[in-house]
Structure formats: structure tokens, C-alpha cells
């Protein structure tokens, strides 16, 4: 149901994605995330077109964490910040983090390979139904994504929307 992918460049780490739909306690979850009492980054799935987008952002976040050059204070915040095309941290949270009346939540965890993660523990804190990541395309708001990432019409002729987004994530502030 969930998706786990190892990070090739960081052999001890892997990324797990969990998608929840029909979530009722988004406000409480957001508060918990801000306090840091919930594991993982809480992301608005309407902004995500493909799990690869999150993997690239997480990969960059782990790299920056390793060399000590993160722009935010925690790894989870860095993942959300990396998803954003501009350099404003609070704007990134507003657009890519969850807001109080969201009905779907994507949770991203970066874990060490040896440590077993308690997924049920996290799932129990969410008052909603965990669904497979194959349902992610249905939750995506493509028009809003194009507007936020400023994807030009000629870009879509030479590649997919995902390619354009990945380019922006990886070359921001390079």
C-alpha cells in the first residue's frame, strides 16, 4: 500500500510514502507536525504529480542535511521547502504543506534502513483511510501545479509536466 524506495546515493537511507484520503483531523495533524510530535513530512497531495517528485526533493534534502547546508531547521521541513520553486520558506509551507481543511495527506518519511518504522503508529494518528499511491494522480490539481511551477506551454511539448517540475526542484539555488 505504501511506497518505499531506497536512496541510491545514501545507502543507509530509504524514503517511505503514505497516502491518506478522507482525512478529518487535518488541523490537528498540522499542529502535531509543527510541534514535531509526528514523524515525517506532511505534504498536500494536490501539488504532487508523481511520487518521483517527492523522491527527488527528499534526495536533495538528505544530501543537504549530510553536508550541513540545509536552509530550514529539520529534514522534514527541508523536503517541503525543496518542493517549492521559490526560496520563500513560509510560502513553501503554505502551498506544499497541509492546511486545516485538507481532506488528503501525503506523509513522507526518511528512515535508516536498519530501523524498522512503525507505520501503523503513524496511520493510527491520522483519522482517515490509507490508500495506495496509485490513487495519487486523481488527487492532483494539475492546473494549480502548472501555475505554481510556472510551466510554459512550449515546455510541455518537449517533455512531461513531471520533467519540468523535477528540473526546477533540482536546479533551484544551484
Amino acid at each position: 500500500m505504501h511506497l518505499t524506495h531506497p536512496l541510491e546515493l545514501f545507502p543507509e537511507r530509504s524514503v517511505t510514502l503514505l497516502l491518506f484520503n478522507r482525512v478529518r483531523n487535518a488541523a490537528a495533524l498540522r499542529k502535531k507536525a509543527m510541534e514535531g510530535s509526528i514523524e515525517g513530512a506532511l505534504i498536500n497531495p494536490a501539488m504532487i504529480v508523481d511520487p518521483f517528485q517527492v523522491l527527488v526533493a527528499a534526495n536533495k534534502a538528505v544530501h543537504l542535511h549530510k553536508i550541513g547546508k540545509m536552509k530550514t531547521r529539520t529534514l522534514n521541513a527541508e523536503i517541503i521547502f525543496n518542493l517549492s520553486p521559490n526560496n520563500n520558506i513560509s510560502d513553501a509551507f503554505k502551498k506544499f504543506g497541509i492546511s486545516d481543511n485538507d481532506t488528503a495527506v501525503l506523509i513522507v518519511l526518511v528512515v535508516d534502513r536498519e530501523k524498522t518504522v512503525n507505520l501503523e503508529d503513524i496511520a493510527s494518528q491520522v483519522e482517515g483511510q490509507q490508500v495506495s499511491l496509485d490513487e495519487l494522480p486523481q488527487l492532483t490539481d494539475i492546473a494549480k501545479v502548472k501555475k505554481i511551477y510556472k510551466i510554459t506551454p512550449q515546455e510541455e511539448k518537449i517533455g512531461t509536466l513531471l520533467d519540468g517540475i523535477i528540473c526546477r526542484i533540482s536546479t533551484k539555488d544551484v
Partner: protein
Amino acid sequence: MGVLFTRSLGAQVVLPAKQWVLVVPRSRTGTAVPPVEAPRRILLRAGERRARRFPAAATEDCRSGERRACAVWRRGAVMAAADSAGTAGAEDGAGTGADGPGAGEVPPPLPGLQLVQQGAEARVYRGSFLGRPAVAKLRIPKLYRHPALEERLGRRRAAQEARSLLRCRRAGIPAPAVYFVDSVSNCIYLEDIVGAIAVQDHIYAVQRSGGDASSLLGLAERMGQLLARMHDEDLIHGDLTTSNVLLRPPAEQLDLVLIDFGLSFISGLPEDKGVDLYVLEKAFLSTHPDTETVFQALLQSYAAASKKSGPVIKRLDEVRLRGRKRSMIG
């Protein structure tokens, strides 16, 4: 044995045969300066200047007078360190050639890694990155350069390449997507265009199987349009050759992709665009004999597609008159 001191620099000495004597260099005021101090003072000054600009290198000990051949000394030390790192890298099973790991960097730990190409600037590896076929471009460190300069240059080139690829994508010019830029090892991870062949290989195949039919002219037209769009964005590729343009299958669709933006930069000058086209012309005509008509078609298509092509073509004609064995008349 007397030593005659004169007003001029140095001393005139009256010697018996075969006797060595210390020649004392003089400063301008006429006071003797011991020879071993003077060179060291000059070197330290250079070292101070360098240390101010590149503080990381300040702790290097090679600036003392005795170790004046410090370039060789430093290179020896770096090579020794690199060899040990290189042998560790070879054990990773990168499968590179005999000279592969010796240059001192470890290939990226991608699964399914294999060396595709080694150019002068970088090594290209193929592998999978986060589940997708990807290409990793690892810059070869040039050990004859000062390490601080090398690091700065490597970082700048990687950043330039990534930014140019983004600029291409924004403008609708087909180029690989950037997956990750590793600022520590100056390695960039790009989308792998699976199944594509270089235009160079395509032209070889066409020429071997029969004359340059209309397919090559169609290819040239498409390339001209692509380059026109690139130059209209004020993006100069810097290394235009037929091996830096890929053709995606099926070949009839003329789906071209530009790669290798390592030497690219932004410029609006017709001079730079003209030189870019001249580089392509030289590479084209030297690699593929009897293709003058093809290149002419490329230029015509470029002139038709680009809005600013007039000055560029004019500049190209001027650039052709420069260079070796050309008469500078007119």
C-alpha cells in the same frame, strides 16, 4: 683571497682557479643581502597574496624557499592520496579501464553503473536513479590546477550546465532533465535518453548505406530550427558537434535532443553565436566528408527560423576569414 666590492649589484671576485665563492647579492642601497633570504621573501609575498584570496590553501607548506618545485611536490602528494582513493573506487566494481580510477574520484554508487564515455572534461556513467534510467556526469579533476581553483571551476561548470539545461527546458528546447546536482563532488545526474543515437552515428550509417538522401537534409533543417531557437534565447552551447546532438528513435520523426552543456554560457552577441555556428561547421565538415550541402541547408534553415539571424550569419562569414592559414585581407 680578496673579494672586491663594487657599486654594481653582485661582487667582482679575484679567484684562484677552481674555487667556489659565495656571491653576495646587493640591495639597491648597497648593503649586502644574504641570498637565501631574498628569494624566500618574494615567495612569501606571493603566498600571502594567494592565502588572502584562497584561505583554504593557506596552510600549505610548499611556499618555503627550499620547496620551490612545489607544483611537482604537491602533485605528488595529491596523486598518492588519489591513488589510494582510486584503488578503493576500483574495488567497487566500476569496471572502468586501466586509467579510470587513477585520476582520483570514486564513481557514483548507482545500481547498474557502467561507464559510457570518457571525454576530456568528464566521465559519463549510466545507471538508475530513484527508479529511473539516469546518466551521471562526473567531472575529472585536473591535478595540474591549484586545488582551490579546481574546486571552484568544477562547481561553476556543473552549475552552469544545470542552469543551461533548465533554461533550455523553459524555452522548449529538447534537453535532458536534471535530476540532481551534487555540489560536493560536482557531479550532475541527468535523465537518460534511452535508445537514442548520436547524429554523428546516424550520419555515418546513412552514408555507409547509400548517398545523403533527403533524410539528411530534413535532419539539417530540423537542427537549424533547433539552433535558431536556442540562439534566440541567447544561449550559446559552446561545444556544438554532431556527437552532442542525439536522435531519439524512430529516426524518421527527427526528434532531436541537445546534450553536453558543460561549456555553455548566456550571451546576446552575434559574435558568440557566430562562433558557436563556426564550431559546428568545423566539426561537421571534418567528421563527415562531402556534406557541404547538408550544412548549407542547416544554415538556411537557421536563417529562416531565427529572428536575429542576419548579424549572426554575417559574423559567421567574418569568423571564417580568421584563424590559421587565412589571409587577413579585407
